[in-house]
């Protein structure tokens, strides 16, 4: 009973009798109405016509002349330009129908199959002529107007019909541009142009068409299309827009993408409970397979067994060296400003380079160009406010956001001795200007600044900060070609100020600056072949450290380690080719080159001997911009996808990457005062190769996304240090550096549920990460030159993120994380030296700290949904580490009063409740 055939039958018909004869017709008329013509035919012949007057009303300027023609021919010609069909029954009765066609036999698929748009989607499908039967759903709540377009013809084999028309504003009569035409819930990407004209391809039959516009009331029409036709629409101005219209495009995108990327839903991340109620998009990313941190208080991210300096973190194309505040506990990126967060860890597009493991491509959202908007949050530790304002209406807008921590005075007011001398404060600000010059040209400018101050003892203060600027110009040359020019500049710096009681008070500073110009083009050669190509060049200037006296009594001699300069350039091209409908490859080639530039000196050491003062043979001097050393090579980026089914694919990727800049850290985890060093005569670039294979499957109309992916990665020249190396202000750092091999592999599983009241994901990764530091010389060897687990090797990593919408206003969120404890180096005994006991450390990373697990719970309460109110608000109440698990962060051994003691530290050892108030207007 789901469907039934409606044939328009003889309803209140005017009957006109006529003689029964199969005579030929001779007729001629000029600008007469159709009804009159039919009456004339009835007069001449015995045919009788059955129709409704209203159907014929619009055809009143008919002209024609027929000579001795059969009735079929006459009627065919007569109704040619109308939507009227005819059916000649026996006894000379002619039944006219509007739009529909009367079939005198049932079609093959009448009983068996549902006549549905899905089946007709196969464009060059079967040659079966599928007639249009109207199917209606009984449970349609709102009344949707049904419109019939075109005339059905019996032998119309065309499956795709064209519907075009104009969309006007009901009130003003003006055309409305940019109205999205959504067909059967699918956004085909069709919009009205500036004149309000649209044209859309529809499948023959019933189509539910939505006309969606940001400024107008949306409209829905049920369009029964029989043939190409025209539909003009008038839309009412929208009175109130309650929420954004969410257009779901390309539901199987994750399956179809050739270069798979990890996307973090910025909007959704607000529901995930995090420490102290702070929204942190990147921390959400660490709940996804393959991305982790060394621990709760560890800075940086480890992607697929890579060190934390191997991630290219871009904010609007500018590199952010340290996207975290306060030892990685808070994100340094304003969550309100972010638009898209894409992470490439599997296949890295050829347009990115310079880091081995991943690309975190973060882009800010565009500032509003039509009205003033704002968003803010007040949490226990920080406050955050972001404002957007149009500058030129509908063309340009400005966004300014700022975030700061105000926990400092509270820290000092605590009567906890160990905290008395601590202080921690930070802030970050972001500004963005976007200007749509015309349809083809758009300019965006972004400025970002962050700063952290912290001190652990009363006499030293640590300050670090990022600065990033970028200017981007997007230009569309024509339908096939578009380009982007990006100029970016980034800086990272830190300072240590020591103000003690003696004569050695100092200020120590480090700074790295980089400026990049990147030109990138996209060329759509055809539907099946797309190119992406471009060039980029980046100039580095590193001031590795300087120390100067602080105060007049200080006897510190100013010292400055030689500046380092380098130029990293690349040319890249990639082609995305659909070999068949199912098999697509993306082949990229990036040729990168690094020039270490003078001015400076470089030490040359004896070949085949460990590098130290004794094996130093000569020191070379280089002039400004003289090339010290050139490194480089081709980086192949290959990705392929084969669609096993529409919602099931297999993907493979191969990546080769080079990295010319390295973090120097002799700590087990990275800290903000670790310096970045450029490759030079003695320090070679790092390189890596990754192979991966994965399966992607969507279930239940993409309500569930399932993926399983394996990877294997080898890297070379990974930087490490000799035991006890002094890194800061070391003029001959190469004597302390070890370069070794890296190896990692793993399997990542992800199940995501996107729809429904309960949504979230479950991820599990089994992966290993190893490093090998081998050398013929004992002093340059670690763990006998064998592979050993890296500091962030955590074989099992399980995370569950689940949100449950209880009502429209209340939603509950929970997080659960389980990870194998990370490796640590523990003593193999102790020894007595200089009247004290010390721990003897042996092989690195042989032991593990206890496993990590944590459960967080959060409750989101949305403000009321009254129409007239100042701002939309919501409150997040969360408890971090509900189980109160004392997860050790590190284990270490100190000598106190001549005795060795083992200690373990943890960051959040108790449940941490917090409440955050967010508002938006």
């Amino acid at each position, binding site marked *: 009973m789901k469907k039934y055939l409606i044939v328009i039958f003889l309803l209140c018909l005017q009957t006109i009798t006529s003689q029964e004869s199969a005579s030929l017709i001779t007729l001629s008329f000029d600008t007469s109405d159709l009804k009159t013509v039919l009456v004339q035919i009835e007069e001449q012949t015995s045919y009788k016509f059955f129709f409704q007057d209203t159907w014929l009303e619009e055809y009143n300027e008919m002209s024609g002349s027929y000579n001795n023609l059969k009735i079929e021919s006459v009627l065919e010609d007569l109704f040619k330009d109308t939507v009227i069909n005819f059916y000649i029954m026996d006894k000379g009765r002619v039944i006219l129908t509007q739009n529909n066609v009367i079939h005198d036999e049932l079609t093959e698929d009448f009983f068996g199959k549902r006549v549905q748009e899905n089946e007709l989607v196969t464009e060059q499908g079967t040659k079966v002529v599928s007639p249009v039967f109207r199917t209606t759903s009984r449970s349609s709540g709102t009344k949707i107007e049904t419109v019939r377009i075109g005339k059905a013809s019996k032998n119309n084999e065309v499956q795709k019909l064209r519907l075009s028309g104009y969309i006007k504003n009901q009130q003003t009569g003006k055309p409305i541009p940019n109205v999205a035409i959504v067909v059967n819930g699918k956004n085909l990407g069709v919009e009205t142009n500036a004149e309000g004209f649209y044209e859309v391809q529809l499948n023959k039959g019933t189509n539910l068409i939505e006309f969606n516009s940001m400024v107008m009331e949306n409209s829905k029409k049920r369009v029964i299309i029989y043939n190409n036709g025209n539909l003009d629409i008038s839309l009412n101005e929208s009175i109130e827009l309650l929420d954004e219209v969410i257009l779901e495009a390309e539901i199987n995108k994750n399956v179809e993408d050739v270069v798979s990327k990890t996307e973090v839903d910025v909007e959704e991340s607000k529901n995930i409970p995090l420490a102290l109620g702070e929204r942190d998009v990147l921390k959400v990313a660490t709940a996804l397979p393959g991305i982790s941190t060394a621990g709760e*208080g560890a800075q940086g991210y480890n992607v697929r067994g890579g060190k934390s300096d191997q991630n290219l973190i871009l904010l609007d194309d500018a590199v952010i060296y340290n996207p975290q505040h306060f030892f990685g506990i808070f994100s340094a990126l304003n969550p309100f400003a972010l638009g898209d967060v894409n992470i490439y860890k599997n296949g890295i597009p050829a347009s990115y380079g310079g880091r081995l493991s991943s690309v975190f491509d973060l882009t800010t959202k565009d500032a509003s160009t039509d009205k003033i908007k704002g968003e803010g949050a007040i949490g226990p530790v920080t406050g955050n406010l972001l404002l957007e304002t149009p500058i030129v209406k509908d063309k340009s807008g400005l966004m300014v956001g700022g975030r700061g921590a105000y*926990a400092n005075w509270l820290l000092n007011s605590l009567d*906890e001795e160990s905290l008395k001398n601590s202080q921690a404060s930070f802030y970050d600000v972001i500004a963005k200007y976007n200007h749509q010059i015309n349809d083809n040209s758009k300019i965006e400018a972004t400025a970002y600044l962050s700063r952290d101050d912290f001190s652990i003892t009363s006499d030293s203060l640590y300050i670090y900060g990022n600065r990033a600027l970028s200017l981007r110009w997007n230009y569309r040359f024509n339908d096939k070609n578009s380009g982007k020019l990006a100029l970016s500049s980034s800086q990272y710096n830190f300072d240590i100020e020591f103000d003690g009681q003696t004569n050695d008070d100092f200020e120590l500073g480090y700074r790295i600056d980089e400026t990049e110009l990147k030109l990138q083009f996209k060329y759509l050669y055809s539907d099946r072949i797309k190119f992406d190509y471009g060039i980029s060049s980046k100039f580095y200037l590193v001031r590795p450290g300087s120390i100067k006296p602080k105060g007049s009594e200080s006897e510190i001699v100013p010292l400055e380690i030689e500046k380092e300069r380098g130029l990293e350039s690349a040319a890249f091209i990639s082609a995305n080719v659909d070999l068949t409908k199912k098999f697509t490859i993306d082949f990229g080639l990036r040729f990168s080159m690094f020039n270490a530039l003078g001015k400076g000196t470089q030490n040359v050491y004896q070949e085949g001997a460990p590098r130290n003062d004794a094996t130093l043979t000569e020191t070379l001097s280089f002039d400004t911009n003289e090339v010290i050393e050139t490194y480089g090579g081709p980086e192949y980026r290959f990705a392929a996808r084969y669609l096993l089914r529409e919602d099931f694919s297999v993907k493979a990727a191969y990546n080769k990457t080079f990295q010319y800049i390295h973090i120097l850290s002799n700590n087990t985890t990275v800290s903000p005062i670790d310096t970045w060093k450029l490759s030079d005569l003695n320090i070679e670039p790092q390189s890596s190769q990754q192979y991966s294979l994965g399966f992607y499957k969507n279930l239940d109309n993409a309500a569930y996304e399932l993926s399983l992916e394996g990877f294997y990665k080898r890297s070379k020249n990974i930087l490490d240090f000799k035991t006890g190396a002094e890194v800061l202000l070391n003029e001959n750092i190469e004597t302390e550096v070890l370069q070794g091999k890296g190896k990692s592999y793993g399997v990542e599983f992800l199940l995501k549920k996107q729809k429904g009241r309960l949504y979230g994901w479950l991820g599990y990764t089994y992966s290993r990460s190893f490093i090998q530091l081998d050398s013929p010389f004992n002093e340059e060897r670690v763990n006998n030159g064998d592979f050993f687990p890296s500091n962030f090797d955590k074989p099992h990593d399980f995370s569950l993120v689940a949100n449950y919408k209880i009502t429209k206003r209340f939603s509950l969120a929970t997080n659960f994380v389980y990870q194998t404890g990370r490796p640590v180096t523990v003593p193999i005994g102790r020894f007595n030296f200089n009247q004290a006991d010390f721990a003897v450390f042996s092989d690195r990373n042989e*032991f593990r700290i206890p496993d990590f697990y944590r459960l967080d719970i959060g409750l989101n309460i949305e403000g009321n949904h009254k129409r007239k109110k100042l701002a939309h608000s919501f409150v997040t109440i969360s408890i971090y580490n509900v189980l109160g698990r004392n997860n050790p962060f590190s284990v270490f*051994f100190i000598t106190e009063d001549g005795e060795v003691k083992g200690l373990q530290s943890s960051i959040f050892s108790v449940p941490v409740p917090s409440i955050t108030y967010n508002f938006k207007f």
Partner: protein
Amino acid sequence: MTCNKIIKAGIAMVVSILASSCIEPTEIATENFENILVIDALITDELKRQEIVLSRTFRFEDSIASPEGEALVSIKDDVGNEYVFEESEGGRYVSQQEFQAILGQEYQMFIETTDGQSYASDKVMFQQKSSLDSLYAVRMFNDDGVEGIGILADSFDPTRNSAYYRYEYEEAYRYVAKEWINFDIKATTLNNGVISITYEERSVDKRTCYNQVPSNNIVINNTLSLAEDRVKEFEVKFIKADDISIADRYSILVRQYVQSREANAFYETLSNFSESENFLSQIQPGFINGNITSTTDPDLKVLGYFEVSAVSEKRIFFNHDDILSDLPEFRVRCMETLVPPWNSLFEPIEDYLKRVQSFVNTGVFVLSEVPLIPVESGGPVFLKPRACGDCTVFGKSEVPDFWID
């Protein structure tokens, strides 16, 4: 070092990042113990019988390092002298004759152990003299804002050849038992089972004692970043105002060694690995290679360092009241303890005497005053913590040779 797990309501919640962070002790069990030779060898420019200490690594479960005995130890210089060492006590080797390091000469150490392994050090040049110019005590606050006394050192090398310094010290202090009286109580059980209470003279030696404590931490410094080799107000040691060592009179002997860069780096690494500067960012520990290697098996691990250093020393004395007269000094709480008195109605006197005896024999107490009523007839006995009346709790009564009152 205990974890303050009690989150103070209100503001503490707000700053719980730090409040709930905690460091707590953890059990250490020795895994994969390795038995490694440890060499502690320091040759100075003092003319004396030089000393080298050999021991073995030991497990955390064990309390003390096992000495390495019966080894052959010798030092050769580059002018053809060989100094042979002989074992004096377990693991301690002293040179057969007195000698001193001479400027510009190179020294190398050789060791053969009973397990057949041979070790040799790198050649070490003796390069620089040391001069500790002054040593003084200053009233100051430490980094945690606690008031006390800082022992500061000044040193200057006009030749600009010294850059790395290491300090060792030996503290000595006098302690006076403020409530010393000249009687002690004794409770002995006689053969017939009767408890006899006697009084005997308490030695005057128990009134004033001296204690000596060697340094057991690594104190290093360098003048690398300074315009000249001038050590100024370098804090060798900080003593909190209420520390026992400065309760009365205090003395410290500081020895300043001028080190080579390599030796300093060794000590620095050792020190870095054994302290926690910042628990959020932990230095990567590992095996510390010194300047000694095995000649029989290059892969054999050996710990320690052969150092040839110049030394100079200074001793200072001061009294608590000279510097900290207005601050409270270390005090033992001398509360009187009364042995639960005899209840003449319900218990025989023997029980009371037994009680007195059990108190006296703990060794925790000394007599506070001689009882007026004889104890045998139930007189009350007043006692005090031992430290109040007997200084030997904290030291020895012999006056050290160097002591100046």
